[in-house]
C-alpha cells in the first residue's frame, strides 16, 4: 500500500512504500526535500486505492544514475520491495497489537513511534501529559518535604519520557507525580489537623 503524496514544490504526484512514512525524501522532479506523510488508509479493504503500477515505485531520477529516488532518503530502512505492498511483511505493534508494516517508523493505529530519529520530533510536537511541577514545588515548601521531592522527581520523568517519545511512560510518571502531590498535601493537612486538636485540647484544659 504505497503512500501517495504531492510534491509541495513542483506539484508532481509521487508514491513511496509504507515504511518510508515520516522519513526525509528528495522529489525526483525538482529535488525538493520533504517528509513522506503517513498512509491515510485506516482499514484495509474499506478503502482500496487504485493499484499502482510497479514502475511508480522507482521513477528514474533526473540525474539518471539508475537509483530509486527513495535511495536518497536519509537512512531509509529499505528500498521499495520487489514483491509490492500487498505481501509486505507485517508484525503486531508492540504498543497496541494491531498489525502494521514490519519496517514502520510509526504505528498508524496508536501513533507509537519506533524510529529513534522520529521520536524526538513526535515527543516535542505532542502536548506532554501534565507534570504537576508547580503543585510539587508548592507541596514541598508548604506540606511534606520528602513526598514533595518525590513528586518533583516524577515531574522531571514526565518531561523526559515525553521527549523520548515514551508517551505511556510519561502518562505513568504523571500519575505518580499527581499521587505524590496528594500524599504530601494530605500529610500537611493531617499535621495541621493534629496541631489544631492539640491546641484545642490545651485550651480546653486551661478552662
Amino acid at each position, binding site marked *: 500500500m504505497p503512500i501517495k503524496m504531492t510534491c509541495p514544490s513542483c506539484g508532481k504526484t509521487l508514491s513511496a512504500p509504507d515504511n518510508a512514512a515520516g522519513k526525509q525524501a528528495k522529489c525526483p522532479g525538482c529535488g525538493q526535500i520533504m517528509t513522506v506523510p503517513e498512509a491515510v488508509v485506516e482499514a484495509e479493504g474499506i478503502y482500496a486505492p487504485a493499484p499502482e503500477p510497479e514502475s511508480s515505485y522507482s521513477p528514474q531520477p533526473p540525474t539518471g544514475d539508475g537509483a530509486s529516488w527513495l535511495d536518497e532518503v536519509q537512512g531509509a530502512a529499505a528500498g521499495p520491495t520487489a514483491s509490492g505492498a500487498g505481501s509486505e511483511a507485517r508484525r503486531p505493534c508492540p504498543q497496541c497489537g494491531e498489525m502494521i508494516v514490519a519496517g514502520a517508523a510509526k504505528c498508524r493505529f496508536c501513533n507509537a513511534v519506533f524510529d529513534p530519529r522520529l521520536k524526538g520530533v513526535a*515527543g*516535542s510536537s*505532542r*502536548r*506532554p501529559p*501534565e*507534570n504537576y*511541577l*508547580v503543585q510539587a*514545588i*508548592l507541596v*514541598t*515548601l*508548604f506540606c511534606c*518535604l520528602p513526598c514533595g*521531592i518525590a513528586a*518533583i*522527581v516524577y*515531574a*522531571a*520523568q*514526565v*518531561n*523526559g519520557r*515525553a*521527549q523520548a517519545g515514551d508517551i505511556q511512560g510519561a502518562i505513568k510518571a504523571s500519575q505518580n507525580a499527581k499521587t505524590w502531590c496528594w500524599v504530601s498535601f494530605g500529610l500537611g493537612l493531617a*499535621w*495541621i489537623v*493534629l*496541631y*489544631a486538636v492539640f*491546641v484545642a485540647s490545651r485550651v480546653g484544659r486551661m478552662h
Partner: protein
Amino acid sequence: MITVYRMALGVVVAGGVLILYVVNPAASSIYPPCPLHSLTGLYCPGCGSLRAMHQLLHGEIWAAVRLSPLMVASIPVLCLLLAFRNRPYHPWVCWCALGVLLAYGILRNIPLWPFSCLTPHP
C-alpha cells in the same frame, strides 16, 4: 465534579490567605510549627514561608525576603511555570527546581555569613 473540587479549593485558599493576612504567624501560635524545625532545630526549605507570606500580603517585600528569600524568588518562577504548563519543556527545568530546593535547604542551615542570610530573620 472537577468544578466542585476547584471551587472548594478556591474557597480553602481564599480562607487561608485571609487568615494569613489577619493573623501574623510570627506572633501567634494558631499556625502549626514545622515538624522538622521543632524536632531537630534545622530549617527546612519552607521554614519562614508563612511569615514571609504575611509580610508580602501587607506589602512588606523586604521583610518577606529576610524571612524566606526562596519563597519570594519562586513566585515569578511558579507563575511562569503555570503559564507554560501546556508547552513541552526540558526535564532539566524540573531537576533544576529540585536542585535549588535541596541546596537551599542545606545552605540555610550553615551558620556562616553568606549562608546565614538565608535563615528566617524576623
